[in-house]
């Protein structure tokens, strides 16, 4: 046992003395939280719009006021001709142009109908959709409040309740995903690098001749990263809670237990990569492309899985972060117990066993 601890302590020295590793280990979570919490957001803010008002009467001004006071949009310029619309879009100056019919107020009074044309620059497809919907919603609201002043019969009133995230905060989506991303990064990448580093320094042979058993070597290499990953996970949860008000509605103990399981899975994956990679460079490359990219894209972190082509949906089943994100969201945001996440937990546990099995087999054959 004593031999083992001596080994673990040495691993800690390596980590703390390597500045780059420290940067990644501590800088990355903070940078990611900042990025995903503040910068990457699907919410709409400060969108520049232009107005082509062919009427310029009271009602159109009121509508514009309402639109601009919503906080989503910023008035950039007035447009006076069709051509100007094209030019404005081509320069990328605004994302939406609102066009009011001529004689708007009069048409509305006499013919009972007047048109507003919303033109959105859909080269940014996602934002365009949101912009149009928001603008439309504001106009509808104006209509029901200002114009339809009579009390209409037969009102169907929808009561909307936003569950788990009343204020529709973007952070609620991102904190669980960031946890998965960071834990994968640290556990898998760092482990694979640390083991291949041993190979490069050629100290692996000496370790194998010593009384340390191979299993002790692997576990010893991996232990510092379990500790560090755990600290990181807690940091993310705390930051999420303090800075973004992301709650932990369910059992904290269950959350931490699942986190440790996930960390173990990621570490075993890292070990498996190290048995395949000959140099640190290759280890890192594999980690990046086989781990990071799928985690960011296919785990449901940013992009919803259900809208992807079937092939990718199938692949996402073996991307472990996908299941972890479900678990974390359920515990943190919905407050569910184990009975709702046993299936996902089983999957992660199963994957861990597979990775360990493969690693041990490969490790043994290399010794021959």
């Amino acid at each position, binding site marked *: 046992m004593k031999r083992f601890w001596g080994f673990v302590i040495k691993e800690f020295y390596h980590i703390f003395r390597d500045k780059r590793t420290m940067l990644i280990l501590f800088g990355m979570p903070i940078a990611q939280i900042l990025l995903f919490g503040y910068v990457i957001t699907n919410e709409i803010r400060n969108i520049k719009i232009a107005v082509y008002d062919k009427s310029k009467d009271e009602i159109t001004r009121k509508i514009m006021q309402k639109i601009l006071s919503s906080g989503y949009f910023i008035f950039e310029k007035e447009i006076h001709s069709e051509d100007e619309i094209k030019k404005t879009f081509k320069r990328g100056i605004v994302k939406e142009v609102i066009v009011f019919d001529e004689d708007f107020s009069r048409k509305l009074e006499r013919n009972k109908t007047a048109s507003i044309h919303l033109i959105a620059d859909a080269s940014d497809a996602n934002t365009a959709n949101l912009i149009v919907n928001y603008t439309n919603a504001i106009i509808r609201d104006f209509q029901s409040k200002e114009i339809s002043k009579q009390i209409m019969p037969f009102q169907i009133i929808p009561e909307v309740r936003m569950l788990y995230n009343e204020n529709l905060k973007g952070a609620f989506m991102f904190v669980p995903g960031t946890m998965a991303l960071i834990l994968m990064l640290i556990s898998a990448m760092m482990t694979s690098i640390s083991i291949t580093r041993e190979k490069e320094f050629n100290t692996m*042979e000496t370790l194998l001749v010593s009384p340390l058993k191979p299993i002790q070597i692997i576990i010893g290499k991996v232990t510092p990263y379990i500790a560090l990953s755990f600290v990181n996970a807690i940091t993310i949860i705390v930051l999420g809670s303090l800075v973004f008000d992301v709650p932990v509605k369910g059992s904290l103990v269950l959350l931490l237990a699942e986190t440790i399981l996930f960390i173990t899975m990621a570490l075993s994956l890292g070990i498996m990569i190290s048995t395949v990679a000959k140099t640190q460079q290759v280890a890192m490359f594999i980690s990046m492309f086989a781990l990071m990219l799928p985690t960011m894209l296919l785990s449901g972190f940013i992009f919803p899985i259900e809208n992807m082509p079937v092939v990718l949906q199938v692949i996402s089943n073996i991307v472990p972060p996908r299941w972890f994100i479900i678990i974390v969201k359920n515990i943190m945001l919905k407050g569910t117990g184990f009975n709702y996440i046993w299936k996902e937990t089983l999957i992660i546990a199963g994957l861990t066993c597979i990775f360990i099995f493969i690693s041990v087999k490969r490790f043994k054959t290399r010794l021959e």
Partner: protein
Amino acid sequence: MAEKIIQVKNLVKKFGHFIANDHLTFDVYKSEIFGFLGANGAGKTTAMKILCGLSSPTSGEINIAGFDVYTETDLIKKNIGYMSQKFSLYEDLTIEENITFYAGIYGLSMKQIKEKMDVLLSKLDLQDSRKKLIASLPLGWRQKLAFSIAIFHDPKIVFLDEPTSGVDPITRRQFWDLIYEATHHGITCFVTTHYMDEAEYCDRISIMVDGRIEALDTPDKLKEQFQAENMNDVFVKLTRN
């Protein structure tokens, strides 16, 4: 009769159809310096790895320090030391930390480590440098330190794989002084080397050619046998045949 510390009988190692070690048979006696020579690709490193427990033989009887290589590998590992060719001290750790680490793996207590480390560092005249990183030491010092660490836990046998590669002649001499000292303390030294002049320092030498031991005797007797003036000539004559 001196005690046999390593006994090898008909050791065979095959990689597929390629026979790397072809029925090697030899013994090593306690406290001797045994030189294991041969050209590149002759099979020395393969054989040495088997003796260290790093890989398994295809067939043959092998006994290291009284323990069987097939069934008692753990006990063998506790009783041997190893210094690899490609160097094995951690450059980003200090001298002190390296010693503590390796000694700890071999089961020494903190008290024992402290005492022995003080003795070792003063002998090598490195007390003032104990907190320096290995990376800052010149190569010759690193080799000497690596050897001292390999025998720190007083093993019965120490395996040295080309220990003096790339080192200047003076340091090489000092290194061999350390080896002599170790044998005086009862440690058997199993050395592979390219430098034929170092072969002269050994008690007995074996020369491997194409997977077989073609010569095994003291340097003097070999020179006589092959009518050669020095070990270099012996080697050349042997391999030419």
